């Protein structure tokens, strides 16, 4: 803003206009920072091999066949299938096992409820590296299941701390009267949960399911521990890194693969935007 010591301060209308311009210029600058990486990745992904090595920014020809080539890369389709299996089955198991636990922690009165909740939070905060070694030894040496994704999927059938916590936060908002009137109507706790609580908690469940799906889809550490020895069990997130090494300086194919790994997450986001934002706000703002 210009110093206006002698002149009268600018009329409110001018000030508003200046403010509008300042805000929107900043927003455009910020948008460039967030969007340009996607743009450069996309542009490089359709370049020819030679051009991708050149450092030029705009493709001479748009070679969409790079994407077909990525799919023809040995293993790529298997990684897709594995990612879908891990994320899909993992999400289903997490939701089914976490809902009753969250319900009990939110609505039952029992001794030890607060300590139980603190333990859930503690597990949630725990770096996965802390307990991985003994777990790996059990899966690999006793159960002979390393080289597969089962060591990552099976534990999700026993409640996930993060899901339990988020669901509990959501269930707290369901008024007790609904549950009590269900009980007056002769519903047992299990029926109340299935008939009353789950339908009311749909937005919360959707948010938790999304988070879990993305967690599994994005997981790198888990597959690195349990699936590394067996390329047939790799997921996209794990395989992508080796894709780069296999293709050396072929940045075009690597960028196409990178976008293909991002695509499902972005698609899911556009279809479920509302549940998503709900979930992010759920994580802790409402105190």
């Amino acid at each position, binding site marked *: 803003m210009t110093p206006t010591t002698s002149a009268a301060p600018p009329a409110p209308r001018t000030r508003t206009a200046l403010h509008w311009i300042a805000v929107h210029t900043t927003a455009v600058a910020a948008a460039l920072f967030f969007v340009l990486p996607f743009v450069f990745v996309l542009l490089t992904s359709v370049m020819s091999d030679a051009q991708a090595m050149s450092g030029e920014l705009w493709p001479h020809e748009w070679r969409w066949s790079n994407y077909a080539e990525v799919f023809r890369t040995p293993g790529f389709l298997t990684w897709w299938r594995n990612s879908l299996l891990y994320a899909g089955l993992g999400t289903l198991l997490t939701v089914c*096992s976490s809902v009753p636990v969250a319900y009990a922690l939110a609505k039952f009165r029992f001794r030890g409820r607060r300590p139980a909740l603190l333990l859930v939070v503690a597990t949630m905060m725990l770096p996965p590296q*802390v307990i991985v070694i*003994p777990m790996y030894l059990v899966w690999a040496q006793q159960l002979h299941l390393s080289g597969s994704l089962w060591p990552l999927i099976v534990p999700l059938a026993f409640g996930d701390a993060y899901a339990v916590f988020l669901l509990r936060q959501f269930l707290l908002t369901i008024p007790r009267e609904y549950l009590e009137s269900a009980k007056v109507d002769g519903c047992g706790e299990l029926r109340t949960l299935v008939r009353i609580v789950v339908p009311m908690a749909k937005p919360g469940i959707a948010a938790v399911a999304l988070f879990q799906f993305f967690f599994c889809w994005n997981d*790198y550490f888990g597959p*690195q521990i349990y699936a590394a020895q067996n390329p047939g069990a790799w997921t996209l997130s794990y395989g992508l890194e080796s894709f780069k090494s296999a293709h050396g300086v072929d940045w075009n194919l690597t960028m196409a693969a990178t976008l293909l790994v991002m695509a499902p997450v972005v698609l899911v986001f556009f279809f479920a935007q509302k549940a998503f934002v709900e979930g992010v706000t759920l994580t802790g*703002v409402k105190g």
Partner: protein
Amino acid sequence: MATPLAHRPAPALRRRHTRERLRTLGFLSPWLIGFTVFFGYPLLATVYFSFMHYNQIQAPTFVGLRNWTYVLGRMPLFGPALWNTLWLVVVMVALRVVFGLGVGLLVTKVKAGAGFFRTAFYLPYLAPPVAATVAFVFLLNPGTGPVNEILGALGVPAPNWFNDPAWAKPSLVLLSLWGIGDLMVIFMAALLDVPREQYEAAELDGAGAFARFRYVTWPSITPVVMFAVVTGVVQTMQYYTQALVAGKLASGVSVGPGTVIQPGYPDGSTLTVPQLVYSLGFQNFDTGAACALSLVLFAVAMAVTSLLMRRRAGLLGAED
């Protein structure tokens, strides 16, 4: 339970109590089993192994405190790894919170194209970490990366980003700022929750933009800022995937299964404590040292978590 005889409840009531307790146990059972098997057991086993020499082939042998003195005293990589993790915890968390708050503020002010801006700022947060890291290693690669092409065209001296020990961690910070969407959303929600009347009252009292932020906005969003800081610290202590992938890819070493590479390229500048646990346990097969180091990480994580549990941080929410 040893209830005094006089207070013993009527049999019907007692039966109801037992039934309620069984019901609670039933609902909690998935987690009770999961917690015992996938948390309690491995934690105890980690403590056990931290006193053993165990190379995952021969049977473990007891070595007393040797792993502990090794990890805390003589292990050459522990110091750098701890330093890198602390550096990231301080710099990354601070910048993320400031930047996230800035973007959140911006989004509440934007009028034209608000939906577009919100989506554009949020989307990168969703990019899978490995994919985002691969993309950034490409964008910032010193040879042909678009960023350095542009900087070169503008005549700005271009750093070597992920290939320069002094720039590798700042590059990771840049990557983390790109994925600020989660913080933007919670800050946006908090900012929209500040009562409008307070701003109007402050304006009537002649408060400028800064004073309004300092005396109206800030006090009402402090809990959310606290939350962002503490969860940020917890996440950054686990910082693993991006550092590992960036280091591996930037080093150009081919990474098939079984390839052992020196972690933390370049020059150990991206080696974090969680990476060191992995490297000790799964590359050097030094189970004992890896377990001792994980317990150090555990202790720090728990200390931070206990901060988070304070009521001030507002994480647990109201009791029902």
